[in-house]
């Protein structure tokens, strides 16, 4: 019997049974599949089927004998059937918009799971919400299909805690290094996919951009126990910063930035901090461990944003502005 057919038959059987179905009866009912060959081989076959069903969200379990009821395999119907999630039209619409944007990007970790999830949340709805045109392109010099492949492998490795081996290109040195990495998690930053994990070459936690990975393999895809544990205090946000000026190039400096009144409402989305009102507009204090990244961001908003302190940050902002001026025909 075709394996898909057997698994569906098994689900249909267990959904219709009130009591657990004993192994002996399963062997009898599925004679060609579980009833022929050595008992060990039959059990192994059933175990593999069980694992696959569990992965698909079928809550199959063994129940011990109780009173007159024989022990056997059963399916918890309440845990199986998807209930009506009770989403309002707005909630469903915005979930759909988000899911569609992620799928349209062509490279999103767990894209296959996402497509199924969207189908399931809309299962009880008579009509699907209108889809807004939202799309998203990940940054990187690689084509979407290979980015999607790498994300798939990495996301699988993150979830199953599998060590990966990879070749990594550094634009700074122009070199490719071979590494073994225990991937702890994936993050999307400024349109680029990154991952963090323990790098066995460097002996510590490092972050990598997915588009700089040249070759990628899971070291032991079939090994039973996971290859590593993620340290309990590990937080993705600590190692893959949200803002470019949070990369750790030096000790953090609190930089004051004056904003024209018009920029005040946008301060949280531009700098990630709330503004303070001043007599001439507003200001923000931003903690930077990569001063140049902050200063150039402020420069791109000139003249409505300006670095006002401390002195070293002001000097750096002026030096960079002079460089731009000199490069564009102006005497500083």
């Amino acid at each position: 019997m075709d394996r898909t057919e057997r698994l569906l038959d098994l689900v249909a059987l267990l959904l219709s049974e009130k009591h657990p179905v004993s192994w002996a009866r399963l062997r009898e009912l599925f004679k060609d599949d579980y009833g022929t060959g050595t008992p060990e081989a039959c059990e192994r076959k059933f175990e593999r089927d069980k694992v696959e069903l569990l992965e698909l969200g079928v809550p199959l379990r063994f129940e011990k004998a109780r009173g007159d009821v024989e022990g056997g395999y059963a399916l918890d119907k309440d845990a199986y059937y998807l209930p009506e999630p009770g989403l309002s039209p707005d909630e469903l619409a915005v979930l759909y918009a988000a899911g569609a944007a992620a799928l349209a990007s062509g490279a999103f970790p767990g894209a296959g799971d996402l497509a199924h999830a969207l189908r399931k949340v809309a299962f009880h709805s008579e009509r699907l919400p209108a889809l807004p045109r939202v799309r998203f392109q990940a940054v990187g010099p690689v084509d979407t299909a290979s980015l999607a492949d790498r994300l798939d492998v990495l996301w699988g490795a993150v979830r199953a805690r599998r060590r990966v081996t990879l070749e990594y290109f550094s634009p700074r040195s122009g070199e490719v290094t071979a590494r073994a990495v225990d991937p702890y998690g994936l993050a999307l930053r400024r349109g680029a996919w990154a991952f963090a994990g323990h790098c066995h070459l460097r002996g510590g936690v490092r972050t990598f951009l997915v588009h700089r990975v040249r070759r990628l393999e899971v070291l032991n895809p079939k090994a039973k126990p996971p290859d590593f544990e993620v340290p309990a205090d590990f937080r993705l946000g600590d190692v893959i910063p949200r803002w470019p000026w949070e990369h750790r190039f030096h000790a953090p400096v609190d930089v004051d930035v004056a904003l024209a009144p018009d920029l005040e409402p946008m301060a949280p989305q531009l700098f990630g901090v709330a503004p303070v009102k001043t007599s001439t507009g507003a200001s923000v204090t931003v903690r930077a461990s990569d001063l140049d990244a902050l200063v150039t961001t402020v420069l791109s908003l000139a003249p409505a944003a300006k670095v006002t302190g401390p002195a070293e940050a002001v000097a750096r902002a002026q030096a960079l502005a002079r460089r731009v001026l000199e490069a564009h025909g102006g005497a500083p």
Partner: protein
Amino acid sequence: MSAASERLRQLLFLVPYVSRHPGRSVDEVAAALGVGRVELLEALEFLPLVGRPPFEPDDFVDVYVEDDKVFVELDQRLHAPPRLTAAEGVALASAARLLGASASEALTSALEKLERVLPPSAREAFRQADRRLDVEGSALAGLPAVSMAIAERREVRFDYYAAGRGQTERRQVQPAELFGHQGQWYLSGFDVARGAERLYRVDRMGPLEVTDARFEPRPESAPARVPDRGLEPVTVVFSAARAPFVRERFGEARSLPDGRLEVTVPGDNARWLTGWVLSFGGDAQVVAPAWAVRSVGEAARASLG
């Protein structure tokens, strides 16, 4: 997930879907399942083989197509799909965060409801995996509201900060598309006062007001891209130190003999250009045309004032 598992996952959805929505057309059902028509018809031919032992006539799934519509007579208790798996839950939650779930009431409440429909046994796995995928760093507060306004075809109003001018301008826009490009979110739409298509960076938009004014979508124009309206292109040269990083983001870049990198960008928007060149702090130099060189020089001088 193997192809066989994927097929099984589809079939566990297909039978309940037809049972819940009888009489939908073959194409509708195929679209709902995310497969082609041929693939769906193959699945529908396979399903009558499925049943439960002892496989009496009434023990099989009875699904059929009549007048190009799909019906199921006997669903063998496959009347609802399995609940979300932990992986499906995480994928959906992450997508919601891509659009800024934490800033949107509708998304936050949707995610809470979502967690409740996970089977209890999957909730811990969901929470664990959810901590391992972080997309919120790219989200902006305005995204859910903008995307809903696009879907509902409502005009939106917002203050827009146009780089170079140093002040915001009030805009009323018929929003057409929201898209993420080179790490920034952009909204393309029809600016009502200016009577023209415009492109806005979402992080430079003030709080969004969704109005009651509805609009009819305009005839499909060329898909909006980051500034490109066919005007004189601008040539920018990047320093040798910056070149390898710039090369990662620009497909069509030319290496110069001294290690620098030359890139051509559309030149339709001086204000966008100056802000962008300034953001490289001297590692980017506009070499042509003259107006663009002057414009960047003036902006740099203004920032020193």
